[in-house]
């Protein structure tokens, strides 16, 4: 089963932006104040280049493991896959934690028990046990949901925003820009995720730059959302976690119609439930690719991993701020190593183009 070009572009343009709409806007506002658009723009330009490199690598028609094996041998390839897989498991942690807190805070009006979110991990175990290439169809379904929801939230939000609040540019200075850009790395793993997809889709002419453009188009939507978010909350934006559930509630019609924006918020959170598990799925897929696929291994691995995520997110339930500060603070260097440096370096791998009949 292969992922089609359309499905891949749906992922890049419609699903990849979703993970940047929950906690990242608040984090950026904390670091860069009204300049929050600049770090996001810088990240998107950087990551679009990474997406371009990763898609260029797909020209060779081989998976990452085969490429590494042909260049360095199987042992190094296994090590590379294992290390990348460990990173992807780590990269999934923050989005899953975000998703958990989002559901607990937005869909409940008191603090629910830990078990209220537990079924999510059954869902996670199921998703992670499935081969990654089978998710193209899921993206076909989720992309329209994501577009519909984000457009809905934006339409309800724009009227409440004072976009002049984004002025003046450069108020946070160079340090604010740098801190914002660095702290945003944990939310940008889309380029390196494409490495796990290598060999699961066929390269077509112009796909690399078209993919990068799709990614930038999604980025433009995120930037617009970010501008709207800051335009609504201005100096208090730092206090508004779960951004995409907050902006639309000031729509004047809501006093008459009720929280109709929840239709969009729930739809977006459903799409997010798939998105936040993508790195973990990719990690499982890479591991199976490197070490073979005994019959029950995917299921066992997925269940164990889901249990680990359940335990870790339960432990981190009241320590989200500390986790966020650690992941986007002292440990932030881990992300650029994998998400920025690795994909271009992979272009150096030797590998023969597979003959496709």
């Amino acid at each position, binding site marked *: 089963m292969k992922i089609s070009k359309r499905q891949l572009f749906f992922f890049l343009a419609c699903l990849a932006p979703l993970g940047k709409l929950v906690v990242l806007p608040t984090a950026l506002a904390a670091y860069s104040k009204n300049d929050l658009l600049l770090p996001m723009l810088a990240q998107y330009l950087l990551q679009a280049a990474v997406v371009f490199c990763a898609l260029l690598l797909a020209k060779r028609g081989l998976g990452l493991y085969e490429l590494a094996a042909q260049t360095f041998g199987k042992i190094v390839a296994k090590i590379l896959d294992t290390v990348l897989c460990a990173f992807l498991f780590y990269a999934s942690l923050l989005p899953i934690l975000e998703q958990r807190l989002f559901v607990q805070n937005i869909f409940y009006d008191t603090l629910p028990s830990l078990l209220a979110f537990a079924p999510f991990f059954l869902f996670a175990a199921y998703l992670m046990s499935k081969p990654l290439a089978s998710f193209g169809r899921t993206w076909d379904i989720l992309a329209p949901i994501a577009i519909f929801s984000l457009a809905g939230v934006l339409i309800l939000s724009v009227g409440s925003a004072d976009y002049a609040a984004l002025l003046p540019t450069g108020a946070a200075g160079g340090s604010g820009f740098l801190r914002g850009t660095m702290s945003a790395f944990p939310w940008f793993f889309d380029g390196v995720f494409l490495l796990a997809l290598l060999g699961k889709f066929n390269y077509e002419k112009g796909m690399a730059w078209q993919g990068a453009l799709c990614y930038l188009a999604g980025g433009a939507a995120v930037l617009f959302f970010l501008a709207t978010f800051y335009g609504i909350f201005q100096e208090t934006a730092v206090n508004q976690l779960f951004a995409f559930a907050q902006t639309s*509630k000031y729509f004047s019609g809501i006093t008459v119609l009720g929280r109709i924006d929840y239709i969009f918020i729930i739809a977006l959170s459903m799409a997010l439930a798939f998105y936040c598990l993508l790195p973990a799925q990719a990690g499982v897929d890479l591991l199976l690719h490197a070490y073979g696929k005994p019959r029950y291994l995917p299921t066992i691995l997925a269940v164990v991993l889901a249990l680990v995520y359940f335990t870790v997110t339960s432990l981190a339930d009241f320590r989200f701020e500390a986790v966020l500060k650690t992941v986007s603070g002292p440990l932030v260097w881990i992300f650029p190593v994998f998400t920025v440096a690795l994909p271009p370096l992979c272009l150096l791998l030797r590998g023969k183009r597979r003959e496709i009949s």
Partner: protein
Amino acid sequence: MRTVPMKLYVILAAVVLFTFFSNDFGLVDIQKTAIILAVGLDKQENGFSVTAQIAVPKGTDRTTGGTSSVEIEAEGDTVSACIANIYAKTGWVPKFVFCDLIVIGAEAAKEDVFSYLNYFTRNKYMNDSCMLAVCEGKAQELVSSASAIDDASSLAIGKLFSDASVGSGRVMPVTLKDFSIAYYGASGSGYLPFVRAKTQEGSQSSGSGSSGSSGSGGQSGGAGTNEKVYTADETALFSGGKMVGLLPEELTFVFSLLHGQVKSGNLDAPEGNADSTITVLKDKGGVSLSMKGAPKATLSVEITARLCCKSVSSDVEGTAKEEISKELLESVGTVLKERLSALWDLAKESGCDLFGLKKSLFRSSLKKYAEWKDSLLGTVSPEFRVKVTSVN
């Protein structure tokens, strides 16, 4: 064999989706929950006092609809401690999702009110679109008072902040979110409506259970309580979170005109030996700051109005005319200029950046903001532009 796991997955997915997207699963026991309609915040000698107006079910003998309420007061070292004390007194879990009004007592407003509002800006379950107001005297007395026009005082006060009231230019409502933005922004200044309660002449509550008492938290009301009507046509000015001035009714109106939000407000002006009232139909107001040379602020009001009434009788043909005479137009212009000038002086004296001049400067030039932020309000000179146009 392969279909069995698939069915299992489908069932699991259904369970997951149901659990994931359902709300609360009965986690909230409504019998043990206090739906707070309004909160009154007061200063105590050694801390804070919070009065919560809690919605309670009406008795079955009541045939009309509406909301009944009980007021509970608690004291503590922080607002959070007060809320916890309310919980301890009643056993009801306080819920702020439906809280639409926070009233701050006049004494409390003399301090940085964000020491009171801190709890509400942090509370994730708080509705930040709720209205804020300052009141004469103690907020506890206002929140606990019996309204002459509604079941609960908060509902009556809430009516003062309706879109229609805003359109009349008599009130300048502010939400918790907007007041917080003003407080934390470059201006550090804001404003809130100032609520006064007046006893309705010759009226006493019917004992419908619409009000409760403080302290013990019992639901009392009953005959003998004076019913109140409320006004919010004055505006309290804030700088650094402290109340520093009070705009009277006529200046609140002109401030509304500057905001461009008056759509059916009335304004009185002399016309010859009599007084006339005009109705503002269209309002385009604004404040701009120019830093070319000496700092200059331009306050402009541009209104289209019609004649509403006169204090003297007129012939029948005259009553059909909506057009404003040239003399009245000039008179209205003069009145507005005088009031704009008075508004400017009052804001300047109080040290409140009422017109957001610092914010404008911050947005236009960081360099000039750094240079002028401390001296701008004292040095900027005003210019008033008023244009009054009659219908027809």
